């Protein structure tokens, strides 16, 4: 099973544990976790080894949406799935997280392992490797390589 480095961002230790426990139960991959207690801490810990992120919204110092936006603004991070895991559930908030924040998915708390599975399983292949969304640069590369091959 592939090793996947996941960044879990929540100011609640209990919720970080709940996310990790749910992911371990799903056995979609062999996860290695990096934990952060707010958006700023997450930004400090973010590096190019991170393959998927589970991000709370309402946190001190820097919110989850601000963090997601900051990561997307770094460029070449579109292939890293950002899953918002939050108590905010109004449609306006969902829209803000997905559009302004650049998140890929939205899960409301409290969540079940089943709900988590339905939301994130499409990001993993059968061998437990992550399938990220291709960045524009990668899309361009694969477009040209397909032309060359044909």
């Amino acid at each position, binding site marked *: 099973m592939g090793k996947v480095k996941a960044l879990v961002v929540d100011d609640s230790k*209990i919720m970080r*544990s709940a996310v990790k426990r749910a992911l371990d139960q799903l056995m979609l991959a062999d996860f290695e976790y990096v934990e952060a207690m707010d958006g700023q801490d997450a930004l400090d810990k973010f590096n190019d080894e991170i393959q998927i992120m589970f991000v709370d919204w309402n946190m001190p110092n820097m919110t989850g949406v601000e963090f997601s936006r900051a990561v997307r603004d770094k460029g070449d991070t579109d292939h890293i799935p950002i899953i918002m895991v939050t108590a*905010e559930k109004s449609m306006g908030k969902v829209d803000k997280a997905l559009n302004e924040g650049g998140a890929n998915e939205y899960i409301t708390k409290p969540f079940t392992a089943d709900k988590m599975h339905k939301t994130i399983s499409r990001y993993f292949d059968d061998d437990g490797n992550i399938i990220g969304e291709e960045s524009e640069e990668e899309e361009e590369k694969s477009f040209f390589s397909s032309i060359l091959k044909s």
Partner: protein
Amino acid sequence: MIPKSLNGINEIPTEIIGLVKESVINTFASIIGSEPSYIEQNGQAKSLNGIIGNIAVFNQQHTLSLMIVIPRETALKLSEVFIGAEIPFESDDMGDLVGEISNILAGDVAANIETVGFRGQSSLPTATRGSDLTLFMPSKPPTEKMKFVGPSGEFWVNMALSESR
């Protein structure tokens, strides 16, 4: 719709109370797996040995403060359901848990009261633990106390509506 000025308003609008009640029932049902019952006689225990989660949903005009009052025994049972194991009442994790429950409730309340024109956002939660606590609700802003009983025990949700400053 809540009037901008709360001068002369002595009670929280019944539609807000109803929506908060609905949110409490939905939130606790999603956490513990079955709906808690609302108890009409909402008299609060004279002194509390337990933990209180505080959070607010606010906008520029109004602040709806929520206080989730959880007796020790209920808190311990809730931790068992939420975490899968009982966590010590005196631990930081217990405060963390009650803060998170407050956060989840406030998220549901915020989404629910949007339907009556109160578009707000949640504050960060805080939790207070203690024994022999007496809760005083201010008399000036309109307040409401609601009692619930569920499989994890009894708890109260108090709320106050005030003008944002």
